[in-house]
């Protein structure tokens, strides 16, 4: 099913992934933290690409699901005392279930109705996390979350943890690629295109939407769980509505409907504020304007620039 012209892009991605393995040798503690944050965001955005890029569902809840994953693993590994190796998969399963439960009723809605409903979910998540002090810790959050470890080896530094995240991203990318070209992935895209064309909806359509939404939540849950074991601390602040918007922005900047675009967008948008740190307040103005310009002039994201350049020099890419 994979079109042959994708081969070059796949090869380039593989090379980039392998080269990325060497990065920690060249980067300081601060740089590696930003890289780690970029990898974590990339996982969440690849997930978002299922719901938004493929199935066309406008969701403003991704940060809420990242928060579900982060809080679940935080609670399981502190209060319940589970090792991260167990609590992370449980958090992913739990977040997927929450995603399905939220998606089932909400996904009958379309367009801005869905956007507002998912926005309501994200706002409610923060209200609950802020007020449910006994379990979720309120605005003080949950601290003392253990670092990731396997029996006999602890990934306690950011440099070591980078390899865990690298592996997680590689797996997440590989699985996303498989799904994209499986019948599920094709069905998602068909749902999006079909709804635009005919506005038709059926039971099957809802099922596929819920699948896309749950997958999206699963990836968010993984990203959140990985985040919690790096920062050793979670608080409602990191999962507010504004972060959902940033995730969408990452996908749009990179190029919606493309896994590589999702990764590229996540990396670029994570690094941007740190690169422009000295601009202070002006940074957010520049960021917002830049996003607007990309929306206006590059509706397919920055990856379309790369594709254009590739066509220029005679290589075809996605």
């Amino acid at each position, binding site marked *: 099913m994979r079109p042959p012209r994708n081969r070059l892009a796949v090869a380039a991605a593989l090379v980039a992934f392998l080269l990325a393995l060497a990065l920690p040798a060249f980067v300081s503690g*601060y740089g590696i933290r930003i890289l780690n944050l970029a990898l974590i965001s990339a996982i969440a955005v690849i997930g978002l690409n299922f719901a938004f890029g493929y199935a066309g569902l406008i969701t403003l809840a991704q940060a809420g699901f990242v928060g579900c994953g982060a809080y679940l693993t935080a609670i399981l590994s502190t209060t319940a005392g589970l090792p991260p190796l167990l609590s992370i998969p449980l958090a992913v399963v739990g977040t997927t279930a929450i995603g399905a439960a939220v998606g089932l009723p909400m996904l009958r809605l379309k367009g801005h109705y869905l956007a507002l409903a998912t926005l309501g979910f994200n706002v409610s998540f923060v209200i609950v996390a802020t007020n449910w002090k006994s379990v979720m810790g309120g605005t003080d959050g949950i601290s003392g979350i253990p670092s990731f470890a396997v029996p006999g080896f602890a990934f306690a530094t950011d440099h070591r943890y980078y390899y865990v995240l690298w592996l997680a991203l590689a797996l997440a990318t590989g699985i996303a690629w498989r799904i994209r070209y499986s019948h599920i992935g094709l069905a998602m895209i068909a749902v999006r295109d079909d709804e635009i064309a005919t506005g038709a909806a059926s039971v099957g359509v809802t099922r596929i939407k819920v699948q896309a939404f749950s997958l999206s939540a699963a990836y968010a849950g993984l990203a959140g769980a990985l985040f919690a074991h790096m920062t050793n601390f979670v608080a409602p602040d990191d999962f507010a509505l504004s972060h959902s918007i940033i995730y969408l922005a990452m996908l749009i900047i990179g190029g919606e409907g493309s896994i590589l675009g999702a990764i590229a967008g996540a990396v670029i948008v994570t690094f941007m504020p740190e690169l422009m740190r000295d601009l202070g307040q002006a940074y957010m103005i520049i960021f917002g304007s830049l996003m607007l310009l990309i929306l206006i002039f590059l509706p397919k994201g920055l990856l379309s620039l790369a594709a254009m350049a590739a066509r220029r020099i005679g290589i075809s890419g996605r």
Partner: protein
Amino acid sequence: MANKRTVGVRGVGRRKVLAGIAATTGLTIWSPRLSAQSGEIAVGAMVPITGPFNVSGQQYHFSLQMAQDEINAKGGVAGKKLKIVFEDVKDSNSVAVNAYLKVVRDTSPPFVFLSSYTTQNLATEPEVTKAQIPGMYAGGGDAMHMKKNPWLFRIRPADGIQALALAKHATEGLGKKKIGILYVQNDFGQPGAIAAEKVIKAAGATTVGLEAYSFTDNDMSAQIQKLKGAGADCLICISYGKDGALILKLVKEMGIDLPIVISSGVMVPAARNLIAPDELANVNGVMDAYLAPERGPEVAAYIKSFKDRFKIEPDPFGSCYYDGAWILKQVLDKVGPDRAKIRDELKALKGYKGITNTFSTDADGNMVHSLAVFSIKPGTREPVFIRTVSAA
């Protein structure tokens, strides 16, 4: 720590190459800007310079700038110039953690001032433990000192002490028996309200009601009414600046004539200016410190040079960092830029008299243990010192 230094030395050649690349591309993420020079001792400061938190961040920023210049004018620290490297922590936890990692990487400082916001400090705390660098912070949340992190010291009274002072003043000070508590629904207001309730009970008075509002609320009249309806003869408000000002405005509008004891946020000049003098008539408030020229020539000189330089009045929230910087000078002069020794000196600090308070470190790293209570001079917004309430 010894480990880290070796890594640093080994990496110098690589760093120079990368610094060249960074200079041409602006990629400061990859390599440090090498801001510390040989004649200097560089320490970090995590300040909300921009964003919505800069109401307090600006004061913090200014008071450290002033301390740095004054200390250098008096010979610097341990025979070298003191350089405070400021990093902006905005209003986000992850930005605060990134800023901390950046300043540690850039200057490998012997000491770092942390944020004035508790959640930012809670987020940064695990990194402090990894880096083993002593620091001082101003955020009041009790969750922070309950971590008992041996590297961190609080240069302000903790929120718990503030709640205690509010309740003590309402009961012992004003002699009130039926007290209503209005608090902001978060980790400042909620534990504060519970702590105040206990003190009220211990003093033989009753709490007639506890009412919450959310930080973004603009109208608390329902809550105020409920407390009034429950028969309160005094209100304790645990609030920040703007919301506290709104409460005082509403109480006056609703024609409710009750004495109000309110937390420190509303007593800083920026918030007091939002309130009309007659809305302040019945108000007693606590503040971290009694910061007025009457307290002595040193305080008077501090207030004057702050006003001359920055054109605004200093507030006690930010001014505690000024004291922190001078404490740091004393410690650096004594033991030099050695992280563990600085920590031990700060831990042993007793009875240091600063501009804002007297500093004595306890087992949890709290250095300040009392607050000042004020009333308002009728017809003005001027606070009048009543007394000091301490934790013990």
